[in-house]
C-alpha cells in the first residue's frame, strides 16, 4: 500500500509570518493528494552534516494545486537551512506521515498553542460542524486571519497583549466555551492541561504529540510515548508518535 512517498517537492513561495516563524508552500507530486489534517511530513536537509529529517506538521492542503503549506519555527540549524530557501528550490520530503485527526460531526473546540497552531488550520477548514477555535501565543500572533475565516476565534496571549491573558484554557474559562469534542495541538504542558480538562468535563479529546525522531516512518523506535494499552509493534506500552500518532485519543497516552 502506498500511503506515503518520497518526493522532491518544489517551493512555490516562502515568507516569514512572525519572528522566526516561516510559511512555506510546497508543490508535491502525490503528498497533497494523500494527506489529511493533522498528518506531518519529514523534510530532509541538503547539508550533509545534518542527517535526520525534520518532522513538520502540515498546515494546509491545496489538493487542486497539489500543494501543501508548512508553517514552522526556526529552532535549530535544520529549520534555519529551510528558511533560507526561495521559490523554485527543491526539498526532499517524505509524507504524509502518521495519523491525522478524526473528523467527527460534533460541536468542536479546536485548540492550538504556539507552533501547535498551524496543524489545526486544515482541520478547521475541513470540519463542517459548529466549531470554536482557541489560539494561544506567547506574544506575537500568526495565522489569525486564516482561522477567522473558519469560525469563531478566541485568542490567549501569555503577555496579555491581546485577548485573554494566559493560555488556551484560560480563554476557554473566561469565555465560557463548551464543546462535545476537543482537537488540540501544542506544547506538552498545554496538552496535559487540556487532557485533564476534557476528562473532568467528559469531553472527547484528541491531541497531537511530538518527539525527537530519526526515521519518521516507524522503524527506529526513537519517538515513542507511553501508552495506556499495549502497542501493536512491540506489544509493550510504547506507541510510535510517527506511526500510531502523532494524533492520539487523549486517554490512549500517558503524558
Amino acid at each position, binding site marked *: *500500500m*502506498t*500511503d*506515503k512517498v*518520497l518526493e522532491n517537492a518544489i517551493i512555490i513561495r516562502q515568507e516569514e509570518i512572525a519572528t522566526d516563524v516561516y510559511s512555506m508552500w510546497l508543490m508535491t507530486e502525490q503528498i497533497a493528494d494523500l494527506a489529511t489534517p493533522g498528518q506531518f511530513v519529514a523534510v*530532509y536537509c541538503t547539508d*550533509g*552534516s*545534518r*542527517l*535526520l*529529517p525534520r518532522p513538520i506538521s502540515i498546515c494546509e492542503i491545496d489538493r487542486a494545486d497539489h500543494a501543501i503549506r508548512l508553517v514552522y519555527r526556526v529552532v535549530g540549524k*535544520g529549520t534555519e537551512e529551510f528558511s533560507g530557501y526561495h521559490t523554485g528550490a527543491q526539498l*526532499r520530503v*517524505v509524507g504524509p506521515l502518521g495519523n491525522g485527526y478524526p473528523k467527527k460531526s460534533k460541536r468542536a473546540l479546536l485548540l492550538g498553542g504556539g507552533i501547535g497552531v498551524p496543524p489545526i488550520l486544515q482541520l478547521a477548514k475541513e470540519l463542517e460542524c459548529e466549531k470554536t477555535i482557541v489560539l494561544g501565543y506567547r506574544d506575537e500572533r500568526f495565522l489569525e486571519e486564516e482561522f477567522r475565516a473558519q469560525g469563531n476565534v478566541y485568542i490567549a496571549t501569555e503577555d496579555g497583549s491581546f485577548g485573554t491573558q494566559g493560555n488556551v484554557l484560560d480563554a476557554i474559562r473566561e469565555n465560557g466555551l463548551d464543546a462535545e469534542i476537543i482537537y488540540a495541538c501544542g506544547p506538552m504542558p498545554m496538552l496535559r492541561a487540556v487532557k485533564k480538562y476534557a476528562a473532568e468535563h467528559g469531553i472527547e479529546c484528541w491531541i497531537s504529540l511530538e*518527539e*525527537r*525522531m*530519526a*526515521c*519518521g*516512518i*516507524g*522503524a*527506529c*523506535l*526513537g*519517538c*515513542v*510515548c507511553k501508552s495506556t494499552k499495549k502497542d501493536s*509493534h*512491540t*506489544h*509493550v*506500552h*510504547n506507541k510510535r508518535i510517527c*506511526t500510531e500518532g502523532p494524533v492520539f485519543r487523549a486517554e490512549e497516552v500517558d503524558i
Partner: protein
Amino acid sequence: MNTSVNLAGVTLKNPILTASGTFGSGQEYAQFVDLNKLGGVVTKGVANVPWEGNPTPRVAEVYGGMLNAIGLQNPGIDVFVERDIPFLTKYDTKIVVNVCGRSEADYVEVVERLADQPVDLLEINISCPNVKEGGIAFGQDPKAAAAITKAVKAVAKQPVVMKLSPNVTDIAYMAQAVEAAGADAVSLINTLTGMKIDVKKRQFALANKTGGMSGPAIHPIAVRMVYQVAQAVKIPIIGMGGVMSAEDALELMLAGATAVSVGTANFTNPRITEEIVEGIKDYMAEQGVDDITELIGAVK
C-alpha cells in the same frame, strides 16, 4: 559481472545488508526499497521476551552523526517468529537475525528458538552501549565474549556472526577471542558511546545521558577497525559504520569486509540501500571489476 559474496557459507547476491536497529524487520522500508535487491536484511535485535527500551528523548542529531539510546525495544522472539520472519521470507533476500540478551541464557534461548526457522545467519549483539545488563558488558571483556560465542555456537543451527563494539582498547583482540571460541564471522563496528548536552536547557539531549554515535563522522574509525580485524582473523567480516554511499561501502570492502551494513543512512534517505547496490555495480563497470570478491581486503 559477479556481485555475490560468500559470507560464512551463505551466498549473498550482493554485499549490502541493513544495519541492525535502523531498518526494523524491513516492513517500514519495503515501501521505499525493493528488498529483493539487497544482499540481506539484518533485523532489529530480538530478545527472549519483549523489552520496553529507554525513556525518551532517545535520539539526537550531532554534527555529521547522531546519537541513539533506544535501549533495544523489541517485541520478543514469539512475536518476531510469528510476524517478522514470515514477512521477510516473502522476499528473495537473506535473513540475518540480530539477537540480544541480558544474560547468556537469554541469548541461548533466542538462538534455540530460531533453530528451525528459515533464517540464514545470526548476528549476536554483544555491543549495545545503551542497556545496563548484557550488551556491551559482554563485548568489552574477551572472556565473556568468548563464553557467549561458545554457548551460542553450541545450539545454533545457522552461522554465527559476533557483533563487536568499537568501545574497546583493541578490537582485533576481541575478534580473535570470538574467532577462537568458534564464531563464523564478525561484524563491526557498533556505535561509539557519545553524549550531547543542550547548553540552553543545561540538560542531556538523551534521557539515557549517553548514546551510541553513528553516521558519517565515525566512518574512518570503522575503516581502520575493519582493516585491523582483517589482519588479525581468518573469519569473514561484515563492515559497518557511517556508510552513506557506494564509495563508503567499497572502502570497507577494500579494508577487508566481505559484506557491508548500511545503517544511519537509511534515516537520511530511505532508498539508500538500493542506491548503494547500484552504485557498486557502476563502480565495477567503470573500474573493470568482473568479480566483487577481488575487492575484499585488496588494500593491504
